[in-house]
């Protein structure tokens, strides 16, 4: 039984339509320029009396022919003018739509979410539930309350200043060898999330680098990056601890990210192999920054990223357009809201909101309870952006066999 999903961004998103509209505006401008060029040529020729040596009758004939292009009141010049006007109006319409989108995320909208959540929490308290349970239900009712808190409490500006200064040490990567248990090549999004859930049950900092060969004969790589296992705010060897969260939330490089890049190199990934990074929660943030830095430096060919329950709204926009992202977000999961930012509507960023979990913070964020069934819903969806993403990732999902290499990333301090 599947639940409905909602989708923003991607190939069918608003931003893609804006891009299309701007592309048409560009075409109209170029067409206008082409006409203006020929008009200029004709005016130049007229000025130097083309045909003056031809005799009166022929000169008159040439002059009559060229009038259509030299006279500003004739069709050529008028068409160019009209094309310029159409292009300007189209650009204006895009700007107006974008402004309207910005306005819709207003304080009033945010505050209405707070009021509903407070009402639900108060109701739970009145029914005799404990404060912790009431708070969980309030947050699950509208996790955008977290966005409001983050944006209006000043918390984000503190994280932005303090996060990058968090001591992060340097990565130490241990080789766990081939993982022969992970021997089933994923065939869909749900299988990708299931594989990530298996890795998540391993050691703190355990990641995997899996090789698949698609039906087209091309070797590809799938990397699983689990999330937070340590809530220690201090200097700890567990690379999934809070310092990685604080840094990755604002896009600062982390030892976890560098450890993943080392694991890729040690596993023998070539810089031409297409790579798909799959991350849960903090692992999704790390996946985004790994993709960003790997592609920028030309180290690895990261083409796809799948995140589950990750707050990537402030960082995913920095990815090159060639990296396609599918972000799964459970509607009642508060974690994707911890950055106080919605994922941008981009052609290469598709955000799929799913509806699973039991209304508690841990279950609504859980890979097996919420995101695996949510990914299954996405697999069944006919949404054009989702289908486009899955189609583009087909080479990762149609392999017959898989070879998985596991690593553990820890952190050391000088």
């Amino acid at each position, binding site marked *: 039984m599947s639940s409905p999903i909602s989708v923003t961004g991607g190939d069918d998103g*608003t931003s893609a*339509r804006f891009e*299309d*509209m701007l*592309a*048409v505006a560009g*075409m*109209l401008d*170029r*067409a206008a320029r*082409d*006409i203006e*060029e*020929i008009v200029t*040529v*004709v005016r130049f*020729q007229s000025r130097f009396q*083309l*045909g*003056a*040596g*031809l*005799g*009166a009758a*022929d000169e008159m*004939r*040439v002059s009559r*022919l*060229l009038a*259509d*292009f030299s006279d500003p009141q004739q*069709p*050529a010049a008028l*068409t160019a003018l*009209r*094309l310029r006007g*159409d292009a300007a*109006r*189209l650009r204006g*319409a895009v700007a107006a*739509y974008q402004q309207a989108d910005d306005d819709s995320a207003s304080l009033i909208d945010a505050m209405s979410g707070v009021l509903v959540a407070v009402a639900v929490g108060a109701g739970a308290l009145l029914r005799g539930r404990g404060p912790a349970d009431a708070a969980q239900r309030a947050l699950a009712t509208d996790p955008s309350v977290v966005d409001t808190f983050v944006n209006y409490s000043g918390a984000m500006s503190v994280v932005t200043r303090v996060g990058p200064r968090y001591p992060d040490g340097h990565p130490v990567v241990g080789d766990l060898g081939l993982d022969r248990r992970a021997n089933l090549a994923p065939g869909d999004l749900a299988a990708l999330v299931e594989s990530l859930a298996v890795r998540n049950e391993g050691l703190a900092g355990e990641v995997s680098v899996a090789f698949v060969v698609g039906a087209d004969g091309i070797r590809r790589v799938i990397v699983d990056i689990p999330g937070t296992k340590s809530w220690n705010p201090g200097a700890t060897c567990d690379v999934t601890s809070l310092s990685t969260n604080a840094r990755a939330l604002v896009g600062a490089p982390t030892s976890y990210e560098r450890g993943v890049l080392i694991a890729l190199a040690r596993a023998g990934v070539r810089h031409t192999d297409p790579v798909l990074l799959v991350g849960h929660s903090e692992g999704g943030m790390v996946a985004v920054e790994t993709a960003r830095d790997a592609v920028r430096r030309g180290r690895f060919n990261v083409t796809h990223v799948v995140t589950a329950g990750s707050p990537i709204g402030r960082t995913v926009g920095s990815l090159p357009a060639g990296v396609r992202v599918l972000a799964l977000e459970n509607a009642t999961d508060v974690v994707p809201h911890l950055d106080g930012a919605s994922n941008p509507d981009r052609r290469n960023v598709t955000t799929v909101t799913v509806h699973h979990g039991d209304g508690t913070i841990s279950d609504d964020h859980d890979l097996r309870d919420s995101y695996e069934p949510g990914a299954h819903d996405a697999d069944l969806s006919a949404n054009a952006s989702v289908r486009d993403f899955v189609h583009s990732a087909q080479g990762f999902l149609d392999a017959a066999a898989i070879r998985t290499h596991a690593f553990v990333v820890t952190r050391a301090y000088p």
Partner: protein
Amino acid sequence: MSGLPSAPDLRALLTLAASFDASAETLRARASAVRQSPHAAGWYSSGARAFARSAEEAAAGLLVVARRQEGVALELRSLAAAITARGGGR
């Protein structure tokens, strides 16, 4: 002056005819691209759909200009040929 035209005069006519032909070909390609651009019918709002209609009209306008350019190019060539036949442009 009504003497025989010089070769440079005829060359200028033929060069202009070639410019018109090249420009017409470009405009036809532009019109086709505007017409095939991502569709209008699915665009975002009634305002954008209205624009899509006007983009269709723009493509039609481009074709009108292109056809006129081709017509003028043809007439310029025909004039140059007639002048040459009369013994001009030597």
